[in-house]
């Protein structure tokens, strides 16, 4: 039997360990007890809105920030006394920090200045590193004349030439335009597989994190809210806030009718009574929050009149708004009876692929929604 990537990563040794890491800036509590283990060879992302502490955490791993208490270990060694220039980590900065007065080759070779190897050997390493990031033959160019994407590649080559144990990436794609960003995402994944170095990425872009990461830590206000693989994070967010931050999720008010160890019977506005097993129930919400049920736009299907479907449940609805994207159409639907629980009528957003032969429906059309209780998550 061949091993999957997950098997390999699960068995890999810890590369970065954060143990109850606390960081204060004066009175401001930037990191509130971060516990985290990142494994060797993993592509790990720190995801969160600005000000959540993700960059601070990355900079404490790099050694640019001291921690107030707790411990950071890299490859089993405590890092308190090790300054950034002696750590086995290298960083790709948000601004790329390409040295503008040097050539591309001088930039890439910068970290080798203290390396005892000969000039020819270093030149070979630089060529190798440039080839790896797709900039073969760019060595003699002036760094300031490069485009954004090229600067990004030079920054990668410059960091990877030192063969660090961990590569830290601080929002590396945020300065690129959309097309370039998507291309670089794929290239970064390939590069990470090729070199096998642990990558830690900081991003505020949930899509970027989902695309690239083996695991993602979602952070809010200096704490890790959820640490999971992309699929688990998307399908089973631990609380409403995470659900809201990752992708689009519809929320409907609900009422718990009965509950035991195996699950709960709930009444959901517009969807009616549903039995939900325990694994679809998330309890990590603030006490004063109301009970609510969430589902993703693509988990439900619009059904034309008389059209058969294989879903266990269906609900009547009226189309409120249509947003056409070419490959997809988003429908905002008003569910029949959605006002029953608390009097407020609600729209939910459903996405449909525009498959060949499937017509885009018009605003005001009466329609049916086919769905399965398996796609619901209860937040209580």
């Amino acid at each position, binding site marked *: 039997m061949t091993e999957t990537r997950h098997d390999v990563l699960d068995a890999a040794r810890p590369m970065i360990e954060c143990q109850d890491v606390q960081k204060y800036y004066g009175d401001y509590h930037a990191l509130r007890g971060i516990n985290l283990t990142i494994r060797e060879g993993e592509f790990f992302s720190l995801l969160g809105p600005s000000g959540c502490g993700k960059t601070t955490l990355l900079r404490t791993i*790099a050694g*640019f920030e001291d921690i107030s208490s707790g411990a950071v270990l890299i490859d089993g060694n405590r890092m308190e006394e090790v300054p*950034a*220039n*002696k750590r086995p*980590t*290298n*960083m790709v*900065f*948000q*601004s790329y*920090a390409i*040295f*503008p*007065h040097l050539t591309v080759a001088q930039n890439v070779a*910068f*970290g080798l*200045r*203290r390396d005892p190897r000969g000039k020819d050997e270093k030149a070979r390493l630089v060529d190798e590193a440039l080839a790896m990031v797709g900039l073969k033959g760019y060595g003699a160019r*002036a760094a*300031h*004349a490069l485009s954004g994407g090229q600067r990004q590649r030079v920054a990668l080559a*410059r*960091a990877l030439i*030192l063969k660090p144990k961990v590569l830290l990436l601080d929002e590396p794609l945020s300065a690129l335009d959309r097309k370039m960003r998507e291309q670089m995402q794929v290239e970064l994944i390939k590069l990470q597989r090729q070199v096998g170095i642990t990558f830690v990425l900081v991003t505020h872009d949930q899509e970027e994190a989902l695309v690239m990461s083996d695991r993602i830590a979602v952070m809010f206000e200096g704490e890790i809210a959820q640490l999971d693989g992309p699929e688990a994070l998307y399908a089973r967010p631990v609380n409403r806030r995470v659900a809201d931050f990752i992708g689009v999720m519809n929320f409907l008010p609900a009422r718990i009718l009965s509950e035991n160890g195996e699950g709960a019977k709930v009444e959901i506005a517009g969807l009616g009574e549903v039995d939900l097993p325990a694994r679809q129930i998330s309890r990590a919400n603030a006490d004063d929050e109301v009970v609510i049920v969430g589902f993703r736009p693509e988990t439900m299907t619009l059904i034309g009149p008389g059209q058969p479907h294989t879903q266990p449940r269906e609900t009547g609805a009226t189309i409120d708004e249509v947003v056409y994207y070419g490959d997809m159409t988003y429908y905002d639907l008003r569910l029949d009876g959605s006002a029953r629980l608390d009097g407020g009528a609600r729209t939910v957003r459903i996405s449909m692929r525009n498959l060949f032969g499937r017509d885009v429906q018009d605003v005001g059309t009466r329609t049916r929604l086919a769905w399965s209780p398996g796609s619901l998550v209860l937040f209580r």
Partner: protein
Amino acid sequence: MKAGMFRGSGLRLYALFYLLFLYAPILLLPLFAFNSGTIIAFPLQGFTTDWFGQMWENATLRRALGNSLTIAVSASVLATCFGIFAARASTRFSFPGKGGIMGFIMLPMVLPEIIVAMSLLVVLLGVGIELSILTVIFGHTLICMPYAIAILSTAFSSLDKSLEEAAYDLGETKWSAFRLITLPLVMPGIVSALLISFTISLDEFIIAFFLAGSEPTLPTYIFSQLRFPKQIPMIMALGTVLVALSICLLAIGEYFRRRGNARIGGKETGGFL
């Protein structure tokens, strides 16, 4: 160019007179420096370079020139060095009382120089330090520093903070990161600061007059000679040399600024000089 905007409005004439008023008197300097007549008046007599020879043979003038150069070089180097520290600290870090501290450092720029000179004289005499070119260097450093800091702050603040961090991350020490990355990138600013400080110090009169004791500097020497009409043609020759020197310095400064700018692909922003 929107030349049409100015046509017929008299603004061209205004600009012409403005430039004439600014530079015509300076053009008179070389005119009379090479004029063989001893009286500064038209019509011109004949061509001569005697005044330059006379200037060169004047021992007091040579001493004044030496003093002025020593003072200007020392003061500009000191002001620029201190300016680098202050500019880096003020653009890179935030610390309590930063606004106040920077304000006090920049204050000599707007303080009447006569106040600075007088109070320095009182303090120096009170402490019992003998007046010499050393005390002038001290005073000139003080008044040059705000200009140096203003120029250097611009150079430092346009620098990406993560450049130094990147160099440090790549294994350099904090000092070598500064030397290899920051220093070359702010070099045009440093050259500008040196030149401005040098020029300010070279023609500064009040502080030199108060603090030099019996030592002459160029401005105080020139002032003392104006009483003797016989000396005026020689002063004209000296002025000519100084103008030529200033133009040379400006050209050198601008050359370095443009070269530095081109090397890092910076946008042409006009520069200080």
